[in-house]
């Protein structure tokens, strides 16, 4: 196992009080596997990524365990963590337009992590940078290496970001919405590049996105997050064919489908509850069309439904199913190929 996250919780200090943003997140990533994390804005996807990298504000409290290749990095000092970042695990950010230093050439910026983590000489480093530029599909690398970020297009800059993250051949790559800020055609290119890199390097990837299309394109396994908790986890095909949690169904229902012109595109009413006013039971209860009394009072546990398919919803609880006749309430599969 490459990465094992156990009961990770994150609290941020707001107006003197600690507010829990992430609540007991547990998941794992295997070598060469791509995990997708989906959810609406504000449900804690990006915070999960930043917690793994420990790029958190000073007044944040992180609990639980994060084990990367056998090392429990949650106990690492700041100094020790700097050696892990960019070396064993790297991150690609959402907006390539603002993620590069405007005053330095892209060559220098890619070189940076090589300087930080290896003892390569100047010639070697330049060779490695040129090689990286070729690997991320940028032609004319000899000229490009001395260009400034503003001279490049969004797609090229995201390729540069990928090259920066890949420079020290990390075992884990965290991508925080890497295609959200890009044109659709460029998105496809970047996703293709990610797939190629994955094939070649056996790297573990965590792909954070709100775009189900991206998930379908690159992920092996998917984690659905809602309001700081994981509500469903399944292999990608299983999730699309047989989604269980009403929230997942809602997400899948909100995707426009080719060929089917519905009167109204599905949407989930309401918004994610704010961390200060979290319901005591299931956090989705106020927006769920299948909500029962039980949902309001007690938080559902993660249960295994099929092989490797877990969800946290009372609809699938055996006790609940036995006592009542709510089997008919089970939501229909919403996604059709």
């Amino acid at each position, binding site marked *: 196992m490459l990465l094992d996250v156990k009961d990770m919780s994150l609290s941020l200090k707001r107006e003197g009080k600690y507010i829990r943003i992430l609540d007991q997140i547990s998941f794992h990533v295997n070598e060469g596997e791509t995990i997708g994390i989906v959810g609406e804005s504000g449900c804690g996807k990006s915070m999960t990524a930043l917690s793994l*990298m420990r*790029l958190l504000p*000073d007044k944040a409290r992180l609990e639980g365990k994060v084990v990367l290749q056998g090392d429990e990095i949650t106990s690492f000092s700041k*100094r020790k963590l*700097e*050696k*892990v*970042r*960019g*070396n064993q695990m*790297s*991150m690609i*950010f*959402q*907006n390539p337009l*603002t*993620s*590069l*230093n*405007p*005053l*330095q050439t892209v060559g220098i910026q890619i070189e*940076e*992590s090589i300087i*930080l*983590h290896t003892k390569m000489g100047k010639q070697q480093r330049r060779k490695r940078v040129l090689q990286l530029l070729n690997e991320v599909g940028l032609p004319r690398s000899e000229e490009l290496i001395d260009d400034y970020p503003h001279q490049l297009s969004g797609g090229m800059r995201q390729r540069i*970001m990928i090259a*920066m*993250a890949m420079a020290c051949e990390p075992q884990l790559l965290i991508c925080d919405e890497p295609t959200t800020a890009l044109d659709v055609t460029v998105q496809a290119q970047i996703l293709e590049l990610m797939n190629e890199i994955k094939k070649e390097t056996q790297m573990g990837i965590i792909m954070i996105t709100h775009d189900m299309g991206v998930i379908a394109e690159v992920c092996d396994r998917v984690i659905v997050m809602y309001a700081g908790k994981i509500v469903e986890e399944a292999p990608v095909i299983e999730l699309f064919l047989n989604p269980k949690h009403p929230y997942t169904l809602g997400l899948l229902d909100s995707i426009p489908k080719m060929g089917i012109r519905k009167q109204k595109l599905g949407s989930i009413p309401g918004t994610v509850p704010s961390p200060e006013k979290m319901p005591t039971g299931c956090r989705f209860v106020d927006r769920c069309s299948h909500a029962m009394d039980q949902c309001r009072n007690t938080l559902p546990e993660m249960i295994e439904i099929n092989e490797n398919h877990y969800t946290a919803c009372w609809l699938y609880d055996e006790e609940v199913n036995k006592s009542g006749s709510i089997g008919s309430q089970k939501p229909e599969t919403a996604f059709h190929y």
Partner: protein
Amino acid sequence: MVRRITSSPLTLIGLVIVLIIIVCALFAPLIATHSPTEVNLQSKLEAPSTSHYFGTDEVGRDIFSRIVYGTRISLRIGLLVVLIAFPIGTILGAIAGYFGGGVDQIIMRITDVFLSFPGIILAMSIAAALGPSIENVMLALAATWWPWYTRIVRSSVLSIKNAEFIEASRALGANPFRILFKEIIPNSIGPATIQASLDLGFVILAAAGLSFIGLGAQPPSPEWGAMLSNSREILRDAWWAATFPGLAILLTVLGFNLVGDGLNDVLDPKQR
């Protein structure tokens, strides 16, 4: 960028003035017609003429030559003061802005203390305490000037410290020190640099002021402020003795101001 600077006539005028001053300072011995300190009582208080372009003072020194040599003193004061104050202010401002918290409080309260009384008064008291000399004037001015840069740099650091590229750099494993010097400072000194170019003129003015009241350059040094001060008593008999040093100060400050404003227009994207 060069075209944008030269396209504004005012900036161009400023640039020409500054260039003339620099040329005067560099080639003073070639440009000056007389020695700046040579006393010649036979030709004292002569009006401007072809042999003494700006006339002579009460002991017969050639005012034109003294002004030409004076550019060396003034430029040196301006440059050195800014070169001392700018890095100190920048680094302190960047540290205050980036690390925040207690460090920020301490640094900013110290700058508040310095900024809470008029700069020239503070410089006067420091210069008076250290004893009158050009070096002490420079120290005094540098001590009063750095808090301005600290403020400017701190505010621009605050506006960029949460930029994504800073975060990306942390994600690559850079330590705070490296981020401060490679990412934060280069990206936030723009406004302070413009201020520094304006300040060259103001520092020269302040130094002339301190010399005028006797705290700076001492006779027979051809410092413009000191020359003004000396010619005060003979103003009624020899208008030229006070007028030309005064004009020199005026033009120098004006020149640096015009250049500073021009730089501001060129470098500030909001005013384009």
